[in-house]
């Protein structure tokens, strides 16, 4: 750990101003502290935002939900409205980390957690995300955890969050306040950036932006599922995960949104797959067609080629679960 200066912000505005001046926010610290100990991240200034008044889960006027950035993952998963109207979110949260970590980890921090790529974590290895220009250690190395969509020759890391996958399927927006005190909302679909040749820049946030809340629209469908596939029953990151939200009417899929974890640099959505399902009668043939379409452009490496069949099978099973169709 490199020596750092620590301060505690009295208001979101103060935090954002310190952030603009180069300080790094710390809330739950469940990821940042580990990375600082390993010197994967070496901030020289930390500003503690955990005591800001950014908690609370409230209904919005549009029938949705506003979740304060400091709401911890445990509280969010246990919230009655979340469990009733957004069960995909509750399930995704409970599929992540461990009880102790969920008690500390916050909604805003969860969105910003860093990849679990082995090469990102080892400072003796090249990593364009940790040290721009140093190369990608994973390509040609061990790629079991790595992405099959949205990668670049510079980075094939995945985003590890379960929560963010559910939020993506729910069309969540991120509320951001900047150092000038201005607030804006960013759809989660525009929040993350693909690695391209700048894998160290992971989001569209500007310096000084502070996440103040996550906003959910009115629930888009009563049928919701989150399925996480992993190497052990708990405390492992997703190899593949699928979040699905669906509405069915008159025996046909009226609308669906699907997000995928463990396969891309951020929670992945594929509009063409959703379009393919819309208006159709659920059937195994339809699901198989959708699954084939989803992986049509997958780019794999030796260690992660299994994610293609795994993702197809998992998506098919989730669609069957949502629609009640027999597999």
């Amino acid at each position: 750990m490199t020596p750092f200066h620590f301060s505690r912000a009295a208001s979101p505005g103060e935090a954002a101003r310190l952030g603009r001046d180069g300080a790094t926010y710390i809330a739950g610290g469940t990821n940042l502290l580990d990375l600082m100990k390993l010197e994967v991240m070496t901030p020289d200034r930390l500003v503690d935002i955990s005591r800001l008044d950014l908690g609370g889960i409230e209904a919005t006027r549009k029938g949705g939900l506003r979740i304060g950035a400091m709401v911890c993952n445990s509280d969010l998963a246990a919230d009655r409205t979340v469990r009733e109207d957004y069960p995909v979110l509750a399930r995704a949260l409970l599929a992540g980390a461990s009880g102790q970590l969920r008690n500390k980890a916050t909604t805003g921090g969860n969105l910003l957690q860093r990849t679990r790529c082995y090469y990102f974590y080892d400072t003796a290895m090249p990593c364009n995300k940790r040290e721009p220009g140093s190369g990608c250690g994973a390509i040609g190395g061990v790629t079991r955890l790595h992405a099959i969509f949205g990668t670049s020759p510079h980075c094939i890391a995945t985003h590890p969050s379960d929560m963010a996958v559910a939020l993506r399927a729910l069309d969540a927006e991120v509320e951001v306040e900047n150092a000038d005190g201005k607030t804006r909302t960013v759809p989660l679909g525009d929040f993350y950036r693909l690695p391209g040749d700048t894998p160290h820049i992971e989001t569209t946030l500007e310096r000084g932006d502070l996440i103040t809340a996550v906003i959910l629209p009115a629930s888009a469908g009563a049928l919701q599922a989150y399925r996480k596939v992993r190497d052990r029953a708990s405390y492992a990151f997703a190899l593949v995960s699928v979040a699905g939200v669906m509405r069915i009417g008159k025996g046909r899929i009226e609308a669906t949104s699907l997000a995928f974890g463990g396969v891309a640099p951020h929670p992945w959505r594929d509009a063409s797959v959703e379009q393919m399902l819309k208006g159709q009668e659920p059937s195994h043939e339809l699901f198989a067609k959708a699954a084939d379409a989803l992986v049509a452009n997958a780019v794999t490496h030796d260690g992660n080629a299994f994610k293609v069949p795994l993702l197809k099978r998992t998506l098919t099973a989730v669609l069957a679960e949502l629609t009640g169709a027999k597999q």
Partner: protein
Amino acid sequence: MTRHLKVDERAHRDRLEEMVQGVIGEPLDRPEGQLKVSGRAPYAMDDLPEGCCHGVLVRSTIAKGALAGLDIDQVVALPGIRAVVTDKRLTKNPAQGMAGKAPAQGPEDIIYFGQPVALVVADTFEQARHGAQILGRRFEAESDVALNPDDPNAEIETPKKKQSSMGDLDKAIREAHFAIDETYTTPGHASAAMEPHASVASWDGDKLTLHGSYQMLHFNRAELADALNIDEEKVRIVATYVGGGFGSKLGIAPEGVAAAIASKQLGVPVAVAMTRQNVFEMVLRRSETEQHIRLAADEEGRLTGIGHEALVSNVPGEKFSEPVTQATPFLYRGENRVIGHRIARIHRTPAGSVRAPGEAVGLTALEIALDELAVASGLDPVELRLRNIPDKDPSQDIPFSSHTLAEALMTGADRFGWKTREPKPRSMREGEWLIGLGMASAARVNMLIESKARVTLARNGSALVETDMTDIGTGTYAVLTQVAAEMLGLPVSRVQTRLGDTDLPPASGSGGSFGASSNGTAVFLACEEIRRQLCERLECDPDELTLKDGHAVVGNRRIPIDEVMGGKDIVAEGHVEPGDAEDKVRQATYGSYFAEVAVNAVTGESRVRRMLGVFAAGRILNAKTARSQCIGGMTFGIGMALTEELIHDRRDGHIVNRDFAEYHLPVNADVPQIEVVLLEERDPWANPLQAKGIGELGICGAAAAVVNAIYNATGVRIRHLPATLDKVLSGLEDEDQS
């Protein structure tokens, strides 16, 4: 007075059976349990001495070559940094178990990625860790280095002593009614003790005291003294509590030697704790194995031949090689046999003893092969094994000291409800989950190691047991207390056991499952000597003396023990060493495992739903700690079957998954209720306690029961562990298409 025993013969009496205190074998709570669960048991890094500095080891970032230079000035200029220690006596890796001399030294010569090359010492741990992180290192890396066992430039050794054959296996295979010829692989494993390796060194003149986390103290003292090039008498090692070892703390490790050197150099106490990443990289791993197994059987499923040929690895120069085939020569019948053993010399973290070296991986592969033979022959897997239990050691033509495999198999099958199993794969399904049952035999060689212990029966009628034996979480404190309490007729509350200090009589140490029986025998012998002296005082024959509840009973006299003592303590030492008994009989422990596993037909995820182990290990000294050991072994068996794997980058040999987030031990959710049945057994050849080692038996084949259940569930045969979902899935895809 010392009572000495060399175990040449079987015990003709069961002395513990004659005792009446009634504590031996009871499920006694650990005497130190409350201290441990309340955080008051001081481990190595607790209670640091005044003025103690902290050291952190610096790693090599090449696999083979030379350390050309260190940018020491830059680090020493940082706040709090006291020194960068580059002493040539720093060790490359831990000593192998019972080496008794220094492991490989000289940090400038690099033989694996992650090897320690220096120690940064600072006022605080954080300062030292930062210094170690940024210390500039220049290496001269060699090219064309063998990093993987299958690299063409990896030198393969075939030690003559480790090859053997009898009969004609090739012919037996040709003429067999049923034959299996398959290759199995297991990956490297980390010991994964909860407490990382840690040592605190302080010097008083030329005398060194090291508080460390070690398993075998008098060996460790010799290793440390040799590494420092000082007299053994000048070194004291204290390890009162040890947070798990699993083989990784058998030999003195780099942090211990480094702490001693730094403390001497700086004139202050120095604590060196390894980071978790250090532990993965610098501590001996279990070698990966490749095992070629051939089985030949007649039409009744009786084995006529067994071939078991293993390829393991280690760095050049390390003597240890994973004894994969250790149980193969005696477990099953068959007159035609081949045992093979090859060692690939590669530059990865050196290999050593990890959780039942040999049987843990060797028996796992053999028991998967047996399951394949059961499928091929159409025999029930339990029945197949029952048909192949030999009536004497088939390789050495000597009798078994005792043999409980048949009883373990039948008891297990009965308790588990094995007869409900459908032999045909994919017969049981619950929704998406395919359910299967699998089983395997357990076996582990039994060992006795020279041990001493001192027992004092004090004038007030309390007893003190003293030995440099360790309790690495296994229950030594409880077990030795029970042996002494039983033999001296005292309630356990009046017996105290002191362990983990080289000032005390040298014991076997903890390792190879031999601690409780070896050191327990030393305590037993010391107590026998005390009993003899009590008889002298009471003027009675030993057979006339009964000791119970702090009283001596002779004829119609019942005398409080403190009165017998007459104001004087009795101090006696017990000393046991192995003798000819080892050569006269084959001694081993046996058992069986049964597992029910659910495999997800969509994803290939495997989850163990219930598991039973039935074990026999001679007299059980403490039913609770023995059971706990078995549960731990089976838990690691689940890990070996499903998740655990040291992953190396083939390009530079470095360990990729060097923390507990990515090295997947089973977590609670992976481990179902595990049931353990301990069979009644006495083994008079083992020692006078008639007890054998049980610490490792729970892992010796356990993984095979899980893998065999996956086959029964799915029809997918996993031969390359762990059975991660991608491997199962690939089989499921094939099955789905066929």
